[in-house]
């Protein structure tokens, strides 16, 4: 520790010296969320920038999109954020309201080259707040880009759609190819058995299709997007299009439903389109590079394709959702001039030309877009497709940008959490949207009626309280007991415990007590916290329905998965303890699951449980879905009362059970611990028992089981603790769905902390959980004599 400390001191002094040398390079940190292809191009551009600006060195950080905002928030909270970051329209307002972004106006106006009038109308306005521009827009995309397969249109003998096409809830045969539903109807093909062999439309996500329909038909999600007070998710104008999409999918069969997607194409709906199973694919610009790569004229998969705008509503309404992103500068940046040069370069001509050529981005700068994005005759051959890119220009000009309220990201998750039930045809739109509306409204009401007594929270006091509490704890631990002999090993024991004690005081107890203090505050991690007292706890128990749901889910999961898990691992350990050849290999097999990367295994389990084409349903329903290869079908039908193939992770009744089943996969640790314990059972004791004539079961009950009891106890206790903290699995596999059926306690806590940005409330939730687990464990230790004897806890 000491050495480390000195090293860090020396290093930082060294660093300071280097920094203070004039003419040295300025280092800028740049955070990007792009995936590998976009990242490579931007990295090349950054190299070019460094060449042009030899005084600047750029360090790229690339946490990946899924965790980008979470990392950025933590960095802002600790004051170690990068200089330049990529931000999207949805989230930038959160950062503006936290006062961490620097306004870019003075730089933009100094720069003659940058003419804001060149940008798509509205984009700059979307990215500014109180007349200050905070984000320099980079690229822009509409969610209403429809990719179509020309060959399939030819086969169906219908003309290619024109940009003036429109949609209605009813089919309008007289309009022919100008009517969206007519086109869909003509492109959907059935075989003689009535099964679909070709669908007409696949949206990137059902939600985006419903969104485009709802908005273009004039529906709105809230009374005012900038300062919402009333959520209108359950307005008839929203319910109708959502139900419409579900009907197109399940009744009309124009759209492949979730189950079919996993059957035919194992990955995405785009694959369906690429393999000519679907005629139209609705998505954004981002699919162009992949499609180009897959559909080159030399490959056997080639077909003629192009893009067209999503149809407008019959009355001409065409508010199709769009999104944009760009570069922002952090207020804390030490080198604003240099940072601006970087932003200007990355959102400027050179970079835009490169990314646009790859098909990656439509520049937010319309002048550049018209120059580089819309195909010209002199473009290289591979950059010609899709030819009708001019439609994306129209789409953006009429586009509807994501609402700007800083609370919108969380509000929209209330909607997306409920939707899977609708898309899986397990609930009606009316049902689902009403629930979403209630949850979102509750959240909004709390935001709009903030706590009245807003005493600012003082960090110094908090730190002193922490120190005092730790000292009280130390006194409590060391308080001499009455009527006991002085312990003789005090000195040695505390020397042995010192590394752990240092760790626990600094790295665990300190943060734990701070989180206890924070649980009495309202804190978004960046702005100063406000003191609330016990209000968070009161809220959890009286207002938060999701809290009780999450508690139920976690409790149910624990009650089922822990005892069965321990029982199974005991059985397997007993099996492995039988001396046969190859046990070493089996041991490796059973431990393997604990070593695999969690992301990869979660994805694989999703595949295993696919409705059709997944390994689990192959065992139950056979290759065609109508067989009964292992005789498991009867059991499933008996328990679930349905003879249809089951979507294990997507059905409310089975999702939690499926996650429990998956949890048995990583029992390896428990098995190994049991096995180690079994093998440490002295042979002599067994032999003595055999000589005494004890039977097999007697030997097991009187020798093996008592020998194993501390291990059983250990596995149960740690199992209960771990299963109450399950998070990653549910986060990756189900995101808490469908309909909150797998929203585990810690997942709920995570959502409150990092999506609602209510760190104080999340801390309160954590302490409630801690209280529950602590009580359970304490009862187990105190009340159970069997355990007590093993533990010798006095």
């Amino acid at each position, binding site marked *: 520790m000491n050495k480390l400390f000195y090293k860090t001191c020396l290093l930082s002094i060294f660093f300071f010296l280097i920094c203070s040398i004039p003419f040295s390079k300025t280092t800028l940190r740049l955070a990007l969320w792009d995936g590998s292809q976009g990242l490579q191009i931007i990295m090349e551009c950054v190299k070019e920038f460094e060449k042009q600006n030899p005084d600047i060195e750029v*360090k790229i950080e690339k946490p*990946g999109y899924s965790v980008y905002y979470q990392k950025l928030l933590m960095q802002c*909270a600790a004051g170690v954020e990068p200089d330049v970051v990529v931000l999207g329209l949805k989230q930038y307002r959160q950062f503006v309201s936290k006062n961490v972004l620097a306004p870019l106006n003075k730089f933009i106006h100094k720069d003659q080259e940058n003419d804001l009038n060149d940008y798509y109308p509205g984009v700059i306005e979307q990215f500014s707040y109180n007349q200050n521009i905070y984000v320099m827009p980079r690229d822009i995309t509409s969610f209403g880009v429809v990719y179509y397969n020309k060959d399939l249109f030819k086969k169906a003998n219908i003309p290619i759609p024109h940009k003036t096409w429109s949609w209605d809830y009813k089919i309008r045969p007289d309009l022919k190819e100008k009517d969206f539903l007519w086109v869909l109807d003509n492109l959907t093909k059935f075989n003689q058995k009535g099964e679909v062999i070709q669908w007409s439309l696949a949206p990137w996500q059902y939600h985006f299709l419903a969104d485009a329909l709802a908005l273009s038909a004039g529906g709105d999600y809230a009374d005012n997007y900038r300062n919402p007070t009333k959520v209108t998710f359950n307005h008839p104008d929203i319910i109708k299009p959502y139900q419409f999409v579900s009907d197109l999918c399940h009744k009309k069969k124009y759209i492949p439903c979730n189950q079919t997607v996993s059957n035919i194409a194992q990955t995405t709906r785009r694959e369906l389109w690429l393999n000519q199973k679907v005629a139209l694919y609705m998505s954004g610009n981002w699919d162009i590079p992949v499609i180009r790569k897959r559909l080159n004229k030399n490959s056997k998969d080639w077909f003629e394709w192009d893009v067209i705008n999503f149809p407008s509503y019959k009355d001409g309404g065409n508010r199709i959702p769009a999104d944009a992103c760009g570069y922002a500068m952090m207020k804390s940046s030490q080198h604003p001039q240099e940072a601006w040069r970087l932003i200007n370069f990355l959102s400027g001509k050179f970079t835009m030309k490169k990314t646009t050529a790859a098909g990656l981005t439509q520049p937010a700068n319309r002048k550049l877009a018209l120059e580089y994005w819309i195909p010209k005759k002199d473009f290289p051959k591979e950059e010609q497709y899709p030819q009708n890119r001019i439609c994306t220009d129209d789409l953006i000009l009429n586009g509807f940008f994501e609402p700007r309220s800083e609370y919108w990201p969380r509000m929209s998750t209330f909607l997306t959490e409920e939707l899977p039930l609708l898309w899986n045809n397990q609930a009606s739109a009316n049902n689902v949207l009403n629930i979403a509306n209630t949850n979102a409204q509750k959240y909004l009401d709390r935001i709009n009626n903030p706590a009245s007594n807003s005493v600012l929270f003082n960090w110094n006091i908090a730190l002193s309280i922490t120190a005092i509490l730790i000292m009280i704890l130390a006194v409590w631990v060391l308080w001499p007991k009455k009527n006991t002999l002085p312990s003789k090993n005090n000195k040695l*024991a505390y020397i042995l415990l010192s590394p*752990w004690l240092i760790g626990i005081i600094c790295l665990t107890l300190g943060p734990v007590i701070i989180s206890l203090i924070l649980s009495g505050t309202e804190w978004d991690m960046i702005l100063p916290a406000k003191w609330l007292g016990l209000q968070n706890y009161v809220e959890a128990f009286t207002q938060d329905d999701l809290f009780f749901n999450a508690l139920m889910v976690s409790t149910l999961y624990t009650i089922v998965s822990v005892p069965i898990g321990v029982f199974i691992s005991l059985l397997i350990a007993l099996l492995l303890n039988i001396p*046969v050849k190859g046990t070493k290999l089996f041991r490796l097999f059973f431990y393997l699951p604990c070593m695999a*990367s969690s992301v990869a295994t979660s994805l694989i389990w999703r595949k295993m449980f696919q409705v059709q084409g997944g390994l689990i349903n192959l065992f139950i329903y056979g290759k065609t879905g109508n067989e009964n290869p292992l005789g498991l079908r009867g059991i499933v039908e008996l328990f679930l009362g349905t003879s249809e193939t089951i979507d294990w992770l997507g059905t409310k009744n089975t999702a939690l059970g499926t996650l429990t089943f998956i949890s048995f996969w990583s029992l390896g640790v428990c098995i190994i611990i049991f096995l180690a314990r079994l093998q440490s059972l002295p042979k002599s004791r067994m032999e003595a028992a055999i000589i005494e004539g004890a039977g097999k079961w007697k030997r097991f009950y009187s020798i093996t089981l008592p020998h194993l009891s501390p291990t059983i106890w250990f596995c149960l206790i740690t199992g209960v603790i771990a299963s109450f903290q399950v998070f990653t699995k549910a986060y990756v596999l189900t995101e808490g769905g469908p309909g909150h059926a797998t929203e585990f306690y810690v997942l709920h806590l995570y959502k409150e902390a990092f999506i609602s940005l209510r760190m104080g409330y999340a801390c309160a939730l954590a302490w409630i959980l801690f209280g529950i687990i602590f009580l359970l464990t304490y009862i187990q230790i105190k009340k159970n004599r069997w355990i007590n004897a093993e533990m010798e806890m006095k």
Partner: protein
Amino acid sequence: MNSKWIHAKRILKKSLTYFFLCIATIFFLGPYYIMITISFKSPQEIALNPSWSLPESFSLQNYMEVFSDPSVNFILCFWNTLVIASLSMIGNVFSSSLAAYAFARLEFRGKNKLFLILLSTMMIPSIVLSLPSFVLFKHLGWINTFYPLIVPQMCGSAFSIFLLRQFFRNIPKEYEEAAMIDGANFVNIFIKIILPTSKPALVTVALLTIVATWKDFFNPLIYLNDPNKQTLEIALRTYQYFHYEQWNLLMAGAVIVMLPLIVFFIFAQNYFLKGLSITNHK
């Protein structure tokens, strides 16, 4: 007749054992079958064939692509992960075994209370601790270094201490008492008696620590910024975007990330057996 009967019974018992072991193996290895076959498939194959089908050819195309990807350096990530995991492992085993011995064998003031604190620390969801710890490490100037990943492990972990304590308690006290009479001090007893007898537990703790640090995603994510300091698990996420996953590369990467751990496990397993055989010969 009798001997034949016994012989048949033995064969039956063996085959039954194998039967059940094989059923368990199907459950435990099923997902791996999918992982490995996908790592050999092309995107088209993944899209069109059922997930249980065999790849059309066992070409190493995906593996080559992963290794030649200019945006991630898998070799460097491997080295970083190795440094973090091995230092964490050594530190954790050392500190945990010391603390576990104190809890298992020594009588000292506040023992039960401290043990209660130890148990309690396992019960706090680590997500809420992440932010205060992050701020703390920032003040120590440890952001973008390996220290926040290694130092907490060096202080020992509650789970390891708990596990080791359960093992230490089971070592017959007579050994130590005999050694004590012979005039051995604590250091001697610890090195000559406790450590050798509890090798299986120590190896288990080592293995658990290595696997946990190897697979850790959240901590390297928030503490490491520099692309040259990333770990394997982070590098793997390059193939997961917000629109889709590159299944073939992701699975090839996952196999690469897992291989060193398997090698380590096989190596540790041998040790494990040796350690166990000592306990059995008494």
